[in-house]
């Protein structure tokens, strides 16, 4: 945004920008984009681990948003509405790639996912130390459903009630999926650490 636009935008609240955007105001659209671009891009980037793809998905999410902005009635927070679109855009892209995207409600508890068995079964310890780059790589390996919840909560800072609204699950489900995501990440990180240490 130009300095002039930034100065103008500084006096503009999000609600005002939304109303102006509904009337087709170009500067209002740009203001809304500048407010939310980083979070949407971050979400897309963490989900795809590819900058070019993340940019394409960011474009698509904002285009969908702006095309439908006239229908926004303020029943949910604007950012929640936007991120719901972004998550749907990302998940649709992952489906196109052939990655299984299981709806969170359909996730079934299985012995394989039960965390108990992992407790104390390996000598490798994280000892509270998590390498940032390794974590990034581990996130890439998470199934899309777990990845979505982890990125939304731990990376982007959404609360469970917001996540529930964004992805369309219950709060309990969101907490459960987040816990499983973290357990899986722990397993990946321990495995990587063991690999590095030359252990089998």
């Amino acid at each position: 945004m130009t300095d002039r636009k930034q100065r103008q935008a500084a006096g503009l609240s999000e609600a005002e920008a939304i109303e102006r955007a509904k009337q087709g105001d170009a500067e209002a659209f740009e203001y809304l984009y500048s407010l939310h671009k980083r979070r949407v891009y971050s979400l897309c980037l963490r989900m795809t681990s590819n900058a070019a793809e993340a940019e394409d998905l960011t474009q698509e999410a904002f285009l969908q948003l702006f095309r439908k902005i006239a229908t926004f009635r303020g029943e949910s927070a604007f950012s929640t509405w936007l991120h719901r679109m972004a998550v749907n855009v990302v998940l649709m892209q992952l489906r196109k790639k052939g990655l299984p995207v299981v709806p969170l409600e359909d996730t079934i508890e299985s012995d394989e996912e039960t965390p108990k068995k992992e407790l104390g079964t390996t000598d490798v310890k994280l000892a509270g130390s998590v390498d940032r780059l390794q974590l990034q790589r581990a996130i890439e390996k998470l199934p899309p459903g777990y990845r979505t919840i982890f990125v939304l909560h731990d990376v982007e800072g959404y609360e469970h009630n917001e996540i529930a609204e964004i992805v369309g699950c219950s709060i309990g489900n969101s907490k459960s999926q987040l816990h499983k995501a973290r357990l899986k990440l722990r397993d990946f990180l321990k495995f990587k650490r063991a690999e590095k240490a030359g252990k089998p």
Partner: protein
Amino acid sequence: MTCAELQQVLPELIEGEREAELQAHLQSCSECAELVSDLRAIAEQGRTLRASEEPAPHVWQFIETQLRREGLIHDPGTERPFLLRTPTRRWSPAIWFVPVAAALLLSVAFLLRPKPQSTVATRRPVSDTPSAFSTPEPSADADDSALLEAVQKRSPAMTAAYSDNLRKVNNYISDAQKSLQQNPNDDDAKQYLMQAYEQKTMLYDMALDRALP
């Protein structure tokens, strides 16, 4: 609380609920303590992954170009005509239909400019077909009445047909406008409104052609 019990409720406990209960177990169980410590470290490190990068400038440029192409945005100070003040402007043909219809209405008004012995807006028709003309539909405006008066004077036999068609097209316009008021994004309603204005323009066209000496 046993380790298995802790595992069951850990998704809730690790979010900060029942912290005292959690701590009580962790103090006595190094394995659970290690698990909780690892999970919290993962969550904490996750926070640092929030992208500090922004999308490249071309992302917004693409979005803006696309939105302009779709007619969804305009620059401040370039207000759209009130009929087009809707989120989407896909029915862009209406842009020129409306001024054409307005031009035709002005033409009618010019042709029907006040004569010394009567005023168009208030003169009651002396038609022998009161049912076709003397009680125009509520939605017909003064210009419609003026048009029908002109038709009545020039081609009385056509008055009923024009009156009926005007009534229908005005109802058509009214229905489409109501739909659009309820749902500004109703593309069908926009299309119907555009077609209705088109039809009304054609009616005026025909009426003026027939009315010309």
